[in-house]
């Protein structure tokens, strides 16, 4: 069904808000600005949560996007799905921006973000009755707009408590009370590190991909992160290095099943040899030279030189001289033992001719980033200085350099380096699915990076210990949300010292209520037959009785997730909520917007 001006269906918001959203999203001739309140924010967040929330959890489904260009993209990753939506409402775009900023750091959690945001808005808007009445001056709502005003004011009251909530309450609960439930992985022990990494990667990939793809990619990702088997030193740096160079370390191939994906030693360049290595495979100590421009005697562009020929013979001799130059260049390279030439641009036929006859392999049009990466990882040294020219060059050595067939007529260059480094080849039936797999691997690596770092303390009052130590995990499936809910309820009921002010305790209660939405949705997606309330009551009874959380109740498939990422999620959602609720009016402008902070032009699609 073609929906009217509203881009997404809004199933679970109140009718009043939906009408207002429809009106504001429709043609607004004559109105330059419109007021936006908590109702609009809730409607938007609810719509987004409904779209991506049904795919929360391992192997729970994906979204299929069909673009107007004809591309079809399959996405189970929440951040990619949200980024691909074409949204009209400015608040929706704001929410998506916050989500993407969060995912850029943690690598995962977009679906949990929008779910938590929607449920926070809902429970903050409803508010405990006494607090709402107290904040609004004690009158029960009588007029039609009073309901919305009350909703907005109770949301704003909650938003006002957020800074105190974060510094005074959350850090304390997570850092002290929840510490004993966390499993700390020993980042110095090789085996422990590898097992924990496998658990985290498996959970992250299975939530963002199908089961078959996750199973095929987990060993490949482990091979990428541990090139020597079990490497302990500088784990965090290694993961950051892989993330920084991921486009160069990952090759996507379409038309084959995902089970063929694997990790290869060395570096893969996307281009094929223009001049193949002569004779046997080039093995052993292979010296290479990388050039960034065409090999020519002098560059008229950079020097501003123009040749002037007076006679025909001068012209011919100049051509001959240029030819001889290239010949001497190739001979000099051969004398220095250089076997491969990597070029960032297309070289002349002349160079290819001499290279072919001189036994030099040539790879042309290598993208600049890949060339820089190769020169970075292969040990590079001063270039041979036989022929001085203006082309920037670097020389280095590889352990091997051969041609690798990827199938379907596609081949690439496989170069080995002395450093322990691996490259990932991802196979998928379709190109759109292959980029999804690569994005999921990036997300898993970001989660690992977050896990390996401790979360520092925010407040100045405490001693310098970290809120969350490096390597802390909890069972996946809602354990973090449940524990935080339990302890926040204790704080809200005033059972813990020191006793906090009533508005702050109300805010704790609101957050506690909202947190349960994530495990509720997760378990509903996975096991529609099991009742979440029975699970919840059993878990809380166990916690109260024994002071321990029974891992089997709430965990799914034995996965683990890092605590640092979950804490970051809660913090980011609270910040986003504050930003959303500070907005009171949306102003339509004509013309392009200039975003001073980012320095690029934003696109305004609202003007009509």
């Amino acid at each position, binding site marked *: 069904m073609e*929906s009217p*001006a*509203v881009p997404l*269906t809004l199933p679970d918001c109140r009718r009043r808000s939906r009408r207002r959203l429809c009106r504001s999203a429709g043609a607004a*001739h004559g109105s330059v600005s419109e007021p936006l309140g908590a109702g609009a924010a809730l409607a938007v967040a609810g719509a987004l949560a409904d*779209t991506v929330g*049904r*795919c929360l959890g391992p*192997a729970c*489904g*994906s*979204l*299929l*996007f*069909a673009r107007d260009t004809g591309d*079809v993209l*399959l996405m*189970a990753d929440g951040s990619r799905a949200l980024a691909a*939506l074409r949204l*009209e409402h400015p608040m929706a775009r704001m929410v998506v921006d916050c989500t993407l900023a969060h995912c850029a750091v943690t690598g995962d959690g977009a679906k949990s973000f929008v779910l938590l945001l929607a449920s926070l808005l809902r429970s903050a808007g409803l508010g405990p009755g006494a607090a709402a009445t107290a904040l609004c001056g004690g009158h029960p709502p009588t007029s039609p707009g009073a309901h919305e005003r009350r909703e907005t004011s109770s949301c704003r009251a909650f938003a006002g408590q957020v800074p105190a909530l974060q510094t005074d309450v959350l850090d304390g609960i997570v850092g002290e009370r929840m510490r004993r439930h966390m499993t700390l992985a020993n980042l110095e022990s090789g085996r422990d590190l590898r097992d924990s990494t496998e658990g985290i990667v498996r959970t992250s990939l299975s939530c963002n991909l*199908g*089961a*078959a793809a996750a199973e095929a990619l987990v060993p490949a990702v482990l091979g990428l992160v541990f090139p020597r088997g079990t490497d302990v030193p500088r784990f965090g740096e290694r993961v950051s290095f892989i993330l920084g160079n991921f486009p160069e370390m990952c090759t996507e191939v379409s*038309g*084959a*099943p995902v089970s063929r994906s694997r990790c290869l030693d060395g570096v893969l360049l996307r281009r094929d040899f223009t001049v193949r290595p002569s004779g046997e495979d080039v*093995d052993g100590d292979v010296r290479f030279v990388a050039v960034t421009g*065409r090999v*020519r*005697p*002098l560059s*008229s562009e950079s020097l501003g030189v*123009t*040749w*002037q*020929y007076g*006679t*025909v013979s001068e012209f*011919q001799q100049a*051509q001959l001289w*240029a*030819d*001889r130059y*290239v010949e001497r260049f190739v001979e000099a390279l051969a004398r220095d033992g250089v076997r491969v030439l990597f070029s960032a641009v297309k070289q002349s*036929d*002349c160079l290819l*001719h*001499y290279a*072919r006859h001189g036994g030099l392999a040539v790879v042309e049009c290598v993208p600049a980033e890949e060339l820089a990466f190769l020169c970075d990882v292969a040990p590079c040294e001063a270039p041979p200085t036989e022929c001085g020219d203006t082309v920037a060059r670097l020389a280095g050595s590889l352990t091997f350099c*051969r041609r*690798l*067939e990827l*199938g*379907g007529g596609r081949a690439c260059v496989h170069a080995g380096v002395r450093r322990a480094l691996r490259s990932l080849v991802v196979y998928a039936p*379709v*190109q759109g699915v292959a980029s999804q797999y690569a994005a999921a691997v990036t997300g898993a690596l970001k989660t690992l990076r977050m896990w390996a770092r401790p979360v520092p303390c925010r407040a100045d009052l405490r001693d310098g210990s970290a809120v969350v130590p490096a390597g802390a995990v909890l069972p996946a499936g809602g354990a973090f949300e449940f524990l935080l809910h339990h302890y926040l309820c204790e704080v809200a009921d005033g059972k813990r010292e020191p006793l906090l002010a009533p508005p702050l305790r109300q805010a704790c209660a609101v957050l506690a209520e909202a947190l349960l939405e994530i495990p509720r949705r997760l378990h509903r997606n996975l096991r529609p037959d099991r009742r979440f309330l029975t699970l919840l009551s059993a878990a809380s009874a166990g916690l109260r009785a024994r002071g321990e959380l029974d891992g089997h109740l709430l965990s799914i498939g034995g996965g683990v997730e890092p605590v640092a990422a979950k804490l970051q999620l809660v913090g980011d959602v609270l910040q986003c909520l504050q930003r959303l609720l500070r907005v009171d009016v949306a102003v339509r402008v*004509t013309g392009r917007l200039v975003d001073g902070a980012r320095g690029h032009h934003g696109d305004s*699609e609202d*003007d*009509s």
Partner: protein
Amino acid sequence: MSSSPRRERKLPSRCVSDPLEDERERGEARLFRTLLGSCYGPQGGLKLLRNAVGGPTVATSTSAVLLPALHPPGPVLRLLAAAVRGHLGRRGDGGLFVALLASLLLEGGWGMEVPPGLTGRVQGRLLQLCERYLRSEECACRLRVDLGSLPRLLSLVLTVLGSKPACLLSRRTARHVSTALLRSFLHTVPSSGPARGDGGDDGRPTTVTLGHAVLVSAVGPPVEETRVLPGLLVETPEVAVSVAGGSPGAEGSIRVAVFNTSLSGDVAEGGERELRHEVAVGVSAHGATLAQLLSLGERLLALGVRLLACQKVVHPALCQFMEERGARVLDRLGASLVEPLCRLTGARPLGSLAGVVTPAQLGLVQGTDGVRVGEKRFLHLRGMDAPAPPVCTLVLCHRNDAALAELKLACQAAQHALQALLKEPLALFGGGCTETHLAAYIRHAAMGMSEELLQELRCSRAQVRSVASHLAGALEAVACTLSQGRGTHLVDSRFGHLWVAWRVALPDEDWEAVLQSCACGAVVSPPPGVSWRWLGQRGHRDSTSLGDEATAPTPLLAPPDPPPSLLLDSFTVRSNALQVAVEVASLLLDVKCTIEDTN
């Protein structure tokens, strides 16, 4: 608010949740499956493709031509079509199999009680078991086919050619073309070297460099004139052949120089970007370059070159200069012909006009003659006799150009299959027998699944059996589609092969007498003492019966002594097709919501 005329309001996207429940998507999927199913196999019908704005009409049943022409509107089918194209790009054949199997799995997937996500998972696991079985030594549905068994190779090629009915080949002509194709392929395989070539994706150092078998097509002559010529055919205009009648024919060998740079003498105005120049008045850069070209020509003639081949354009003055002195010039060959030419002659391609040309860089051909095929004229370059270079040309002829285009596609698919044999010398029984065999294996494996596997998949045994029988049923339905709705289909319990009864038994004869041999031809007569299972017309629904699965079937046997000529499918192509089909179906069953951009 003034509205600028260029800006258009973008339409919002169309969001459909649970697309497989949507009636429109299901109708489209059904139509897609019926359309492609009717093209499958040697008895498939041709589809006439035309568009309303004019242009050629094409009659074809090959997926390589059909799928790019079809533009399915829904995103589900578009993804399926993209996956089929991806498989075709890698393997060259089997596109219809992928499309049929994937759409059958999709269609059946939404009718089951098992949730779609679980179906995808279990299917993936069953597929893994299938793959392991196919690659194990005990696999009973595969045959070893290496280069020594010529009848088997011929059967493989005949099966590929036979699956494209638009080629319009009779039995005799199909055999003739297959023999020629096989001969051309064997010509390209080096006679010495490692017995089994690698150099594939695992990056092991042993590589086998194949020769070239160039396909040349000519419309007009009948198919019987298809033949293999050693050496290369270069198309030439009619005039040149009569002019160069004096070129040395049979005596001695001819020196060849191959250039892969342009000999057109073009000089960019003002020079190239890096070497800008200005010329004085009265000095012509073009003339200077032409003089350089002519001096190159003289050097070549001095070295004894009688044939100059260039990938790009040769300056007409240079052409005339060489031809006046008894040499022949072939230009505009193109990159695809230069490599086989270098291989044939042993020349190394030259790329520099001013460089020194040494005799080591030149090549030799035994002789040239003019060949006429249909309306086209070619110059036939014959390589030296010893050692004979692995370059040959397969000349394909047909009376009808549409049939010729199909035949060319079919021959390319057959060449792909033969090259894949070098890496994996295995073939599967064709005609639908492998599909029924695998279906029986899947049912057997689902019954014997261990508890740990059930725990890992988080499902019950009944659910696994249900998914397994659905997957097996889909495979059987694909096998039955080959006969396009005619005949009665049976599967035997000993070998798991497909048997088709084309006629009804007479009142006084035993019903087994209507069966002659199994669909692939490996089992020549109905084995005694086996139990038979009927496959319904809509095979994948009627053949599910718990009664069959209650009795544990014995492991399937391989047919003893299969005859030399039977229907064979390439192992690599089929295995990749099976995996891609099941994987795409699992991915699509998992889709919760489609969002379509309607701009």
